[in-house]
């Protein structure tokens, strides 16, 4: 009887030691694993209201001056109406907005890159923007089919140092590559631009014209070049984890929300301080301009910690 019991006990003890060893290894692995994840799946959020209030007065007055945005809007004559709409609406809220086109149009002003290949065009635009940045340290790249609320972009990067590498937007994964989707707009800090332009010289890892039979979309080529320079994509979201960059239109998002959250359509749908929407018609973009900058209920005050003034020579905001 004793010998039976002791065999069983020996078994228990061995099993117990086995489990302890396994769980020890698990925590050790998951520790390093999660760090690796944190590095690749960054979620970038704006400062909270409390954090903002803690900043000193001198810091507060400096901030709007430091966060200034250079908008690169990549157009083609085919997108003329959207080009005109972007020119007449949201781009007026950038500190500097430059339209880069594949070929010139008599109707609208742009930097004519004389380049049909989209990736090559993007590279040229980036180089031009960096050289003409002046004292602007944040760069926003979008097509005219995107609508951006620049004040909310500034709010997102308010406390981020542009001499650090930032590459922000709506992130997606393609195999091992995390990239920012083009349709919902791409935010780059000055340092990211600098590293990118350095990497442009590397014809092997960051070629100007691909040699493959198929074309990799520019958004992925951009992500690859940035990744090689140690810059990783980060998803821009609000405090609740809602994405601030959208490649869908407002009505599309609302419609989805009506299906998924019928009891709470607007609250569950889209963030108050959303940054981009895409896929909207020019007239919908005009309505959005009115909806963002003008339409409001009398008496609702927000006591925001910063002030952004309306742009000069504009009548629709």
């Amino acid at each position, binding site marked *: 009887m004793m010998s039976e019991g002791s065999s069983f006990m020996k078994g228990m*003890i061995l099993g117990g030691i086995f489990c302890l060893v396994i769980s020890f290894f698990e925590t050790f692995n998951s520790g390093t694993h999660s760090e690796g994840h944190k590095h690749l799946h960054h979620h970038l959020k704006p400062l909270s209201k409390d954090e903002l209030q803690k900043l000193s007065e001198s810091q507060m007055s400096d901030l709007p001056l430091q966060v200034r945005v250079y908008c690169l809007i990549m157009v083609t004559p085919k997108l003329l109406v959207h080009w005109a709409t972007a020119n007449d609406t949201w781009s007026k809220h950038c500190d500097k907005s430059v339209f880069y086109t594949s070929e010139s149009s008599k109707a609208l002003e742009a930097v004519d890159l004389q380049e049909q290949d989209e990736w090559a065009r993007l590279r040229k635009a980036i180089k031009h923007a960096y050289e003409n940045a002046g004292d602007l340290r944040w760069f926003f790249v979008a097509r005219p089919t995107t609508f951006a609320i620049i004040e909310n972009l500034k709010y997102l990067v308010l406390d981020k140092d542009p001499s650090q590498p930032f590459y922000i937007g709506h992130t997606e994964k393609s195999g091992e590559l995390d990239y920012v989707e083009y349709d919902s707009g791409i935010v780059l800090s000055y340092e990211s631009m600098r590293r990118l332009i350095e990497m442009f010289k590397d014809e092997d890892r960051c070629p100007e014209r691909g040699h493959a039979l198929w074309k990799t979309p520019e958004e992925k080529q951009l992500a690859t070049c940035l990744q090689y320079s140690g810059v990783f994509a980060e998803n821009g979201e609000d405090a609740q984890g809602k994405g601030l960059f959208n490649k869908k239109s407002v009505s599309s998002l609302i419609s989805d929300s009506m299906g998924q959250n019928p009891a709470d359509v607007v609250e569950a749908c889209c963030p108050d301080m959303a940054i981009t929407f895409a896929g909207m018609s020019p007239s919908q973009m005009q309505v959005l301009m009115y909806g963002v900058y003008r339409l409001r209920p009398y008496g609702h005050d927000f006591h925001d910690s910063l002030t952004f003034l309306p742009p000069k020579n504009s009548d629709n905001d």
Partner: protein
Amino acid sequence: MSSFKQHILFLCGVAVSILLSIMYSWVLRTLTPSFALNGNKPAVKHTAVSRRTALEFSQKVRVLCWVMTQPKHLKSRTQHIRATWGKRCNIVLYMSSEASDFPTVGLNVSEGRSQLYWKTIRAFQHIHTHHLDHADWFLKADDDTFVVLENLRYGLSKHNTEEPLYFGRRYTPFIAQGYMSGGAGYVLSKEALRRFVKGFADGLCTHNTETEDVGLGKCMETMKVQMGDSRDVLGRQTFHPYPPDYYLPRQTRRPRPWYLLYEHYQPVEGPGCCSDLAISFHYIDAVQMHTLEYYTYHLRPYGYKHRFQPDEHLNNRTNI
């Protein structure tokens, strides 16, 4: 004891031990409050908003809204009003041919375009009987109208409800003094409501048309109710009979399109069409209803100082 039995017992021991460890860690995980799902996010709440002014107004300028609807539309249209702007009225009544748990008020009429003026008459009679003292102003809207109550109150706040007044989107034809578009919504003062009901009681107003906005406009003229000017301090319209995309996009100078033919005031196309403090838009479907709700009450540019500051334009306009 046989060595075989010993081995079996040994293995059992190992198995039991492993099983116990698994059970222990599972119990631990379910009992521990997890941060994994959403991280340390603060409770979801709308940005801190000073609603003091809006609240003061809602007590000083009480608005009763009645929505012209029908049983067929409750699910496709009216529920979206109930979910959005309906709750901002001091009192909201959904008027239909049938009473229901929606809740709707059942009027003694049948459905159909030909019955619209009857519905309007019955609705105002019901309100006069049951709610005259519960509100200061009485708004009629369709079940595809989007209304911003705060801006309505702001406009009405300067006016005296004991005077016979009527505000909305002014149209010219059919009646000498004109009338207010039904779809864009219109508002009667308390005195105007009294006179409308009295007009029918005394036979001075009759059901002389099926077009409810024209009919009501005629009765207003007969009962000497004054037309108000609902444009803002810059002359921009607040009530709109069509959705915003009809008005806002810039146009080259052109003759009036069909939807601007009835306008009493010179229409403006492009950004000057519409006040920042708009009161209504019409022909708004369910998706647009929530979209406008999002634009008006949620989506905003952080820190933006609006170009139009209504209270800075203190002048002596005698209208909204």
